């Protein structure tokens, strides 16, 4: 067994040179002496958690809230490095199959139960027993979890899997006694080891947490942390201006100007993991029987016709970055590619070569929210330059999810304006479900119906590799292939914008600017 420390693992995270995910927040000219009116923190969120059981919740806001109550063995820091949390350290066997974790001692759950190796086993067993839990995704590649000692636990994999280390950062540890009482209990009580304990919740209204006085490491100084649901953008901003809210998530790009000069407000601006693209159904047939997107030249022409810099400006008020690969720079093993700079002449000549100089009619599926519609409208305008006439088909996202999960024989999707981001910052999770040849709907979201053998093999092989250089190499090749093949129009990577009062202290981050509340405080 070779011992791997957190520092060594830093090396494993083969990120691009460009990708330093340090959260950027400008504090020049801000009033850093401002005082908070009380020691209760209020965070205004756009939407509510779906469920507070950390093994049930599926949306991002659920994670934002539950992450303050539940912890994992390992976690990501803001530099996209995997660091220990409930585990003190960990080691991996030479065959890459067994991961052994030494756990921190003397930690208790909110319900008073002790945290130990059995707690980890219990979470695994809960996942095995109930297939409907999101926990499934984390443990599906695991063979077994055994408690070697009171504070030593070993997780054995069915076969080597490079995403293990990412996925373990989503494996939230819950007290066994609480899990035995079921989802209903966990919807109303917290039973984690985290810095905050659930006190009160009104579904759709707010979730109030109070400081865990027995927290095992340096924790928050605020007395309470309330996540309030404020769906209206204008109201969220007003709450920050009046001080009713201390942090707002997210801050819409078009509203930055309104508050950027306020000396008591600090704006966080970081490239997020949200990557935007338009899928091109390579099997789509025109009425005359031709398949325009089956031809790589047409797909490339669309990318040459698209100006991603203008897209960032028009749709995201400049708070987005040009795409330089097929996923966000904050994701592991990102490998930058040469951007498709807008070149209408080149686009037209590629279209002519492919026999489509007169263009064609095509429809695009888009969610009917204003920001998505604005983006799709922009795509439509750009493609009109090369005679591709795009018709917008706007639906509510739930209805779109049904359209886009239809199998190839039944699909009506020609183009789909969509975005993707892997919550565990993994390369495989950023590509497999949306580009792998085995992931045509309904088993995945590859609505380009793009099936490239070489790409598939690279992904499959990389997953089982243990040598990080080899993994990086395989993923770099895969990115290069998809970039050149253009199954999508590559649109951009929006920034995560959050804003907070200058008297908020102790903010830390996960990659891509995701706020962590562990040491949060208020300057009183």
């Amino acid at each position, binding site marked *: 067994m070779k011992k791997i420390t957190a520092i060594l693992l830093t090396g494993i995270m083969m990120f691009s040179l460009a990708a330093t995910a340090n959260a950027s927040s400008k504090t020049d000219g801000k009033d850093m002496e401002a005082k908070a009116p009380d020691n209760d923190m209020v965070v*205004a969120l756009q939407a*509510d958690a*779906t*469920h507070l059981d950390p093994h*049930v919740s*599926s*949306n991002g806001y659920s994670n934002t809230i539950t992450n303050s109550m539940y912890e994992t063995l390992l976690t990501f820091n803001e530099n996209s490095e995997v660091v220990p949390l409930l585990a003190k350290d960990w080691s991996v066997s030479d065959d890459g199959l067994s991961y052994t974790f030494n756990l921190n001692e003397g930690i208790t759950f909110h319900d008073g139960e002790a945290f130990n190796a059995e707690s980890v086993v219990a979470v695994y067993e809960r996942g095995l027993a*109930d*297939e*409907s*839990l*999101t926990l*499934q*995704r984390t443990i*599906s590649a695991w063979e077994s979890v055994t408690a070697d000692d009171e504070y030593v636990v070993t997780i054995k994999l069915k076969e080597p899997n490079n995403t293990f280390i990412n996925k373990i950062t989503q494996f939230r540890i819950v007290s066994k006694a609480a899990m035995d009482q079921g*989802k*209903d209990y966990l*919807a109303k009580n917290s039973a984690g080891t985290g810095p905050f304990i659930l006190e009160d919740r*009104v*579904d*759709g*209204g*707010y979730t109030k947490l109070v400081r865990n006085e027995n927290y095992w490491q340096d924790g928050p100084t605020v007395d309470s942390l309330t996540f*309030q*649901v*404020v*769906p*209206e953008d*204008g*109201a969220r901003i*007003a*709450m920050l*201006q*009046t001080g*009713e809210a201390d942090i707002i998530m997210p801050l819409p790009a078009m509203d930055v100007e309104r508050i950027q000069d306020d000396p008591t407000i600090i704006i966080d601006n970081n490239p997020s993991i949200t990557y935007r693209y338009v899928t091109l159904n390579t099997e789509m047939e025109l009425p005359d029987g031709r398949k325009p997107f089956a031809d790589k030249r047409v797909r490339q022409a669309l990318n040459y016709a698209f100006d991603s810099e203008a897209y960032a400006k028009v749709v995201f008020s400049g708070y987005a970055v040009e795409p330089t690969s097929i996923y966000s720079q904050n994701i592991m093993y990102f490998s930058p590619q040469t951007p498709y700079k807008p070149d209408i002449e080149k686009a037209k000549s590629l279209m002519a070569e492919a026999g489509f100089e007169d263009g064609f009619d095509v429809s695009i599926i888009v969610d009917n929210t204003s920001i998505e519609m604005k983006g799709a409208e922009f795509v439509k305008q750009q493609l009109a330059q090369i005679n591709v006439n795009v018709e917008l088909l706007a*639906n*509510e*996202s*739930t*209805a779109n*999810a*049904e*359209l886009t*999960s239809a199998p190839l024989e039944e699909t009506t999707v020609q183009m789909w304006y969509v975005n*993707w981001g*892997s*919550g565990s910052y993994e390369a495989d*999770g950023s590509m497999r*479900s949306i580009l792998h040849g085995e992931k045509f709907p*309904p*088993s995945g*979201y590859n609505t380009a119906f793009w099936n490239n053998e070489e790409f598939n093999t690279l992904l499959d092989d990389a997953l089982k590799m243990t040598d990080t250089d080899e993994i990086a190499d395989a993923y770099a090749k895969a990115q290069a292939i998809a970039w050149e093949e253009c199954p999508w129009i590559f649109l951009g990577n929006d920034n995560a914008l959050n804003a907070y009062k200058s008297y908020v202290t102790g903010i830390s981050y996960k990659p891509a600017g995701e706020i962590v509340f562990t040491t949060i405080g208020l300057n009183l």
Partner: protein
Amino acid sequence: MSRYFIKRLLQIIPLMLIISIFVFFFIHMIPGDPAKTLAGVEASVEEVEAIREEFGLNKPIIVQYFDYMKNLLHGDMGRSLKSNLPVTEMIASRMQYTLRLVFAGILWAPVLGIFIGVICAIYRGRALDHAGMLFAITGLSAPGFWLGLMGIEIFAVRLGWLPSAGLDTWKGYVLPSLVMGTGIMAVLARYSRSSMLETLREDYVRTARAKGQKEFIVMFSHAFKNSLIQVVTILGLQIGGLLSGSVITETIFSIPGMGRLLIDSIFYRDYPVIQGLLMIFALQYVLINLIVDMLYGVINPKIRYD
């Protein structure tokens, strides 16, 4: 009258049954899969299937309907697919916020609306009439979200007098009440004016005047009271609408009422919650209509219930 009342109450049962059938089948016809939405995009096919199984969504729709009705008759509206909470508990929690908002809105709006309408009718064609109607039309045309956001900007952000969200203190009620009430006030001003004008043309008003009654008594005892029938009908419909939750007011002021619950539930295709809400809304309308019909008799004892 009490026989009529009981008859009307009994009629509610078959009506609700028919409504339940429409509600159930229509919402299942909306495209979109709750299991898939709940599981999220990164879910596997097996995970989605397990959720479907857990909530019985894989059963034939007829079976699902009868399961639902069976539980409903036992007073159980099922559990939310999203939060797993009992639907009755969720609706009860949301209803208190909606009721508070409705109360805040109808506290002043009908009184002011009717007052403006009556004054306009009395001073028909004169400056006061024009001013009153201008006020009413402005209120009617001002979109709720605009009014709400302007209110927040002025009274919360600039002046700092009122909070911009929540109903925690009495101050929190001021702006939502303004947004909720303005529309009702305007509608009632318009209706009570025309209704009052109509009654003023009635023979009994002329007779009262001819008898030499004081103008004040003619106006309020003869004309106003009789003009109220139409106004009560409109007010009933308005309150019925408010009780189903005002999505705009609840959204702008971050209030977890029934309107937002409905919108959220539709997004997640949370069938039990949508069903529960629509049934409650229907019941509220039916009951309010019944109350309005009963009020007719109080306002005008000449109305007979057969």
